[in-house]
């Protein structure tokens, strides 16, 4: 499925000492993370610890007060701070936003077309659409249905497919488990892994659901009160860590 996608680019995302907040409220206090090419990195943390804010900093929707966010493509670094979301998407980073945020009054297919707003992705629009329908057959079945009228699980599939339509190198998924039944969460996580392999993606996933998230993670970070409390080099380290149990699982 990669043949039409052009040369394979090696992308890394390097976040260093990022501080950010909203008005007088500081949310992130010197967060550093690295997402290497081809990895699935999970960012774990409960509500209100800064996961979404960090993602907004990457996407250019929140401007960090300090620190750097650098996208390295084949060794060439691009500073993402100060870029607009549109420019970030053009550089090959796609976001599946928290709570899905589909266009409810538009059809499934129109939602997918909007995912392909990135100029580079428009050249392969038909192939990408075929890929999405192949990966999520239910979307093909319902391509003329209004997105807002679908079930939560189907909407999450559409949100992921819409992000893939921009042909990203790096896929950022913000809380894919929100509002889904446990069985669907498990399927969604497996699907993200499958897509990652089929499209050779680099994935950053923010998640509260610890047990599900580490199933597909190569590495993980735990964020507590806007600081990285723990960086795990492998999933086992995350699972067995005392800090995880104390801060995160509340045990």
């Amino acid at each position, binding site marked *: 499925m990669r043949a039409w996608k052009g040369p394979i680019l090696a992308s890394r995302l390097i976040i260093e000492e990022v501080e950010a907040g909203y008005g007088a409220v500081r949310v992130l206090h010197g967060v550093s993370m690295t997402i290497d090419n081809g990895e699935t990195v999970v960012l774990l943390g409960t509500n209100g610890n800064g996961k979404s804010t960090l993602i907004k900093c990457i*996407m250019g*929707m929140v401007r960090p007060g300090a620190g750097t966010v650098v996208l390295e493509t084949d060794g060439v670094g691009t500073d993402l701070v100060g870029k*607009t*979301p*549109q420019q*970030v*998407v*053009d550089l090959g980073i796609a*976001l599946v*936003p928290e709570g899905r*945020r*589909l*266009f*409810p*009054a*538009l059809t499934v297919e*129109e939602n997918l*077309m*909007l*995912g392909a*707003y*990135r100029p580079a992705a428009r050249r392969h629009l038909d192939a990408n659409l075929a890929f999405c329908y192949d990966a999520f057959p239910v979307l093909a079945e319902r391509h003329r249905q209004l997105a807002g009228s679908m079930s939560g699980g189907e909407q999450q599939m559409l949100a992921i497919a*819409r*992000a893939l339509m*921009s042909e990203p190198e790096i896929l950022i998924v913000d809380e894919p488990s929100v509002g889904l039944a446990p069985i669907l969460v498990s399927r969604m996580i497996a699907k993200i892994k499958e897509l990652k392999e089929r499209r050779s993606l680099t994935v950053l996933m923010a998640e509260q659901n610890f047990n599900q998230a580490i199933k597909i993670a190569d590495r993980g970070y735990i964020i507590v009160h806007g600081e990285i409390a723990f960086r795990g080099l492998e999933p086992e380290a995350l699972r067995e860590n005392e800090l995880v149990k104390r801060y995160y699982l509340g045990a």
Partner: protein
Amino acid sequence: MAAKAFWPVAIALILAAIGLTQLLANEYYFFAAYVVLQFVVLATAWNILGGYTGYVNFGSAAFFAVGAYCSVALIKAFDAPLPVLILAAGAVSGLIGLATGYLTLRLKGVYFAIATLALAIVLETFITNWDFVGGASGTFVLRPKEVWLFDSYIKFLFAVMMVLAVAAVGIARSIERSKLGRGLAAIRDDEVAAECMGVPTLRLKLLATTISGTLMGVAGAPYPYYVTYLDPLSAFNLSYAVNAIAMPMIGGTMTWLGPVVGALLLGTAQQVATVTISSELNLLIVGVMLVGFVILAPEGIVGLVRKTIRRGRRR
């Protein structure tokens, strides 16, 4: 309407309109139809920003009046011909649309609507104090004595407005089917999500305010010749703003056809009421119809018809 039939039908309509001006002697019909067509342009223009993009503009009257006063200024200064008036009015109103967009598009929902209303008041004050175009007391505009092909100037203006209406609808229709239209729909549905998807939201919104403003100005350009006497109170009349909103709402805001249907229906009803009952009743008709349609057909006439067709197919 089938996709390919649009332009042939549009051209046929223009030709039919010109044909009618040669056959029908009674000027009054053209006098009334001009107003209806003018509302087709206004409603279509409003819908590009209000219906497609989801930003409710309460200042349509301002853009219309700027178009009209632009014509007045050019007639007084250079005695410019009508095509020049239309182009210039479109350009000036378009620029004002762009500027308005730049200043106000950070505002959303009702705040944006208030800002556009304020714009109308600012511009009205400006025109009221500009003596060259007549100031508060208004000004007379003399129509050219003769015009090629038509035996009266009103008939000529009717034909011109027909062309403008077809052009405006054609522009709205092609926006709707383009990448731009999809981007605007995304902004209407969820602006943050649109931004996440890499839709250049600010640029698209500015395009929408500019195109919408341009078309409204174009609708106003021939107006001084139509009324022959123009004053700020009538040019900036709130009824333009109310009609420009009510017509797409009644017809349906999701497609190009909605504003056309709404303008034809509401505009004709107003014209008939003006003759048969009283000219003061216009806004009452608008209000009653708007209330009725919001309750009975929230997606407008076009939405209602589509729903009925879909239901019929299922049976």
